[in-house]
């Protein structure tokens, strides 16, 4: 990537343009039951089997809110350093569609649960200079809709209400992003925070997280232009593609003397383009009003204290802590990017290993091995306890770094602890000067010519003698002792 701190500009026919981006992220709240009904939220069940009479909007059915959904949204707000509104309320958003049995979605327009907050992002993980704070406008809680299937019958669409009523958090950013890279960094960071908090699984393929992408363009320094909203984009890559495409399209319109229409658009990943949903716009007037089936939601101190107390250490704090332990900024960043990695690493640290050594080993050795095996850290065949044992064997000189690689490979294959492998295979490093001296004597004797050359000033041959000695000792000699003895003998 080029200099991440340089402003992102798009060159048009008539000059440079700046793109302005805001994201509305819909994140499925992790809960067992739905927001207002007691049916399950699990993914992939048979149609209409996770539907209560409330979800199906039978006459006379009433919503009762799930505490866990509220709690998760509040915890999320706290993790984003956002204002928590102790008094909030649910509103009805009225529209007709076959995936919306009530004829309205219960949402929060006028008094959302969570107010303004911040997400800190780095567009370049290696560069602190790329840091940027993206504002959060609000988070509100609302019901998901059901699902329509259009390809099962020639003249009918099929309706499955399993998802209907599942809790969503809508996390609305301020229009603070100025490049696809910033939007990507924001989404990745937001996803990481949600996963740390445990309020959303962040699974974009299953639709647990999707974004409405608001894009406008302007000349640098000008006021905001007219924005478009591209709905339901379900990957970081697609979000970035939408921004690039929409910015280019808007610039073309403007440069041809046209005006951007404020409208809703849909992204077609196949064609890599957005298209207007304008035809449906005119019918929308959501007639929001407070849901009379639900009273105002008032949160007390105990509830908020419980939410706060249950928050884990968040990525930024963890990263800072790791850096203070002596890890490089890069290592600290990659070790905290995913909650599973960070948790695994924290357990490793809890076994008393050297943090810096551990970080280097995880980033270089462990990540490499996981990549090769094609497994996630959660599925890693080596436990943090076993890894700690391995690192300690290196630190206390029991095995050398190169033997450690061999031991680690065996650990990955067998799942056995490091100590058992070292003992079982006789890989313990030796510092026995008698044995080492004997080998050195033999090697120097057999390479008298090279000894001559070394003594004549060809210093680089030292490495040759080290290599020969280590080889003769089957790698188990303490390299430091070998160095010392060789220097003494060679004079």
């Amino acid at each position, binding site marked *: 990537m080029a200099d991440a701190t340089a402003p992102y500009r798009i060159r048009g026919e008539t000059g440079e343009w700046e793109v302005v981006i805001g994201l509305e992220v819909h994140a499925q709240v992790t809960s067992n039951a739905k927001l207002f009904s007691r049916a399950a939220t699990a993914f992939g069940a048979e149609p209409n089997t996770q539907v209560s*009479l409330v979800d199906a*909007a039978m006459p006379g059915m009433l919503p*009762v809110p799930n505490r866990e959904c509220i709690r998760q949204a509040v915890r999320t707000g706290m993790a984003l350093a956002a204002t928590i509104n102790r008094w909030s309320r649910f509103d009805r958003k*009225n529209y007709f569609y076959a995936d919306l049995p009530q004829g309205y979605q219960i949402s929060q327009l006028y008094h959302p649960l969570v107010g303004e907050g911040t997400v800190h992002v780095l567009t370049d993980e290696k560069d602190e200079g790329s840091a940027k704070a993206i504002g959060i406008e609000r988070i509100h809680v609302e019901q998901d809709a059901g699902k329509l299937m259009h390809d099962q019958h020639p003249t009918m669409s099929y309706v499955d209400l399993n998802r209907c009523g599942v809790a969503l958090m809508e996390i609305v950013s301020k229009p603070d992003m100025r490049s696809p890279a910033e939007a990507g960094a924001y989404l990745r960071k937001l996803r990481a925070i949600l996963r740390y908090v445990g309020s959303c699984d962040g699974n974009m393929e299953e639709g647990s997280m999707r974004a409405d992408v608001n894009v406008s363009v302007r000349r640098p320094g000008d006021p905001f232009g007219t924005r478009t909203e591209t709905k339901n984009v379900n990957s970081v890559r697609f979000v970035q593609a939408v921004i690039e495409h929409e910015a280019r399209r808007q610039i073309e319109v403007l440069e041809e003397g046209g005006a951007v229409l404020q409208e809703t658009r849909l992204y077609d990943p196949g064609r890599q383009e957005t298209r207007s949903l304008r035809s449906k716009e005119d019918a929308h*007037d959501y007639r929001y009003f407070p849901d009379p*089936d639900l009273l105002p939601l008032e949160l007390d101190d105990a509830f908020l204290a419980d939410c706060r107390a249950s928050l884990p250490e968040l990525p930024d704090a963890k990263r800072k802590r790791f850096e203070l332990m002596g890890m490089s900024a890069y290592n600290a960043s990659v070790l905290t990017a995913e909650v599973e990695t960070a948790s695994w690493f924290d357990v490793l640290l809890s076994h008393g290993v050297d943090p810096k050594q551990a970080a280097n080993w995880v980033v270089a050795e462990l990540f490499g091995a996981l990549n090769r095996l094609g497994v996630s850290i959660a599925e890693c065949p080596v436990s943090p306890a076993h890894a700690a044992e391995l690192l300690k064997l290196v630190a206390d000189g029991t095995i050398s770094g190169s033997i450690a690689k061999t031991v680690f490979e065996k650990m990955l294959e067998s799942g056995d602890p490091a100590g058992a492998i070292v003992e079982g295979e006789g890989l313990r490093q030796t510092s026995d000067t008698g044995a080492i001296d004997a080998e050195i004597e033999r090697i120097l004797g057999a390479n008298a010519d090279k000894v001559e050359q070394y003594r004549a000033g060809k210093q680089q041959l030292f490495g040759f003698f080290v290599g020969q000695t280590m080889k003769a000792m089957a790698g188990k000699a303490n390299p430091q002792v070998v160095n010392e003895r060789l220097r003494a003998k060679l004079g």
Partner: protein
Amino acid sequence: MTELTRRTITELRDGFRSGDFSAREIAEQFNAAVAGARALNAYTVETPNDALAAADTADAARVSGDLQPLSGIPLGIKDLFATAGVDTTAGSNILAGFKPPYESTVSGNLRRAGAGMLGKLNMDEFAMGSSNETSAYGPVLSPWKRNDGGNAALTPGGSSGGSAAAVAAGLAPGVTGTDTGGSIRQPAAFTGISGIKPTYGRCSRWGIVAFASSLDQAGPMARTVRDCAILLEAMAGFDPKDSTSLDLAVPRWEAGLSSDLKGKRVGIPTEYRIKGVPDEINALWDQGIEWLRDAGAEPVEISLPHTKYALPTYYIIAPAEASSNLARYDGVRYGRREAGEGGLEGMYSATRAAGFGAEVKRRIMIGTYVLSAGFYDAYFNKAQRVRALIKQDFRAAFEQCDLILTPTAPSAAFGLGEKLADPIAMYLNDVFAVPASLAGLPAMSVPGGLDDLGLPLGLQIIGRELDEQGVLIAGLAIEERAGFSARPEKWW
């Protein structure tokens, strides 16, 4: 054979318990009365077997000593209450054939209390109406006739018109009603029976087809105040399935009954003396004041300054909520479907056009309009502000008094068709009933007397939040003094 259909719930309960007659006899007589009164159009569904089954259970319970509070009592259930496996249509074509797989909390509570069900009672469509003329099943006829020699068909009031007619005609000793803006009290007044709307939140709304959620409350209608207390005790109670349900123990209202109002101040709101109300109504009101004074109460003049704005407030808020509550009737999951033209939207529009009647459509249109872009603040929010003032009026008034006495309705029952052409004239029927609804207060109508044409008139008592007991006591004080015993002569 002992004539049981003219008895009160109290009499039936006590007679059944002491073995004067069996529960089966009670059920059989009421079943016969129901079947013989189809001309009144009070019931939309008759469920004689349900009543008999509950009666047999009650008779067995009497032997085993396992009696429930309402064992032996068959009741009529307003068609707004979902009844498991029994057609529940809210008086609307759009719910034609709908058999809910669930039982409303209130009707379930009554069943658990031992009551049987005689059938489902006709009502204004989705409870929108004051004359029962908006029902898809056609109007209910009041059992009452004017004594002027004419034979005009009269309304039993609405929206609980079937409920009111059934009690007045002896087709049920007691019934459920619902009251959004007077739908228990006005028909009770029109038919010479008693009915109480409790404090908002006393009775669960779960399983009651919603009209206007912030106003809807279930309540009983019966011959006497005591019967209302007995039924309300069985209907009310906390329901975790309704977020607006009050988590309070149900008071023992029957045990707490008396007619002693010593030390109580009864507020008489000056704003309820309105132009155009017949003298007979105001005369009965004055009589009511004297009855309460006689019971020990001290009448005090009070002011409820925003009374005149209650109806317009109501006719913004209730249609707004209804327009949203009725969006679920779309032909997808239950009820009627019309294919229409133009795919899904065409199906929706055709289904709703065919399924809803004129008054329901009118209110959906008003409700949609007042919530639509640009009008929300001017109409809906304005109305909610005025509603706050109306509630504040009552709060202030209840610092000077303990109960409020007013007429229930501004007229006696009117003839079918008389007000159909003028919606506002129809709406004005609820002028005295609506303020208490907007404030969520308990209010009851008890019969006070007959007008010159021989038609019943009612008096309304409004209480403080949660003071159903005070309302019932004042109701009983009036009942004892009014000595209202008139019954419609059987012509059906």
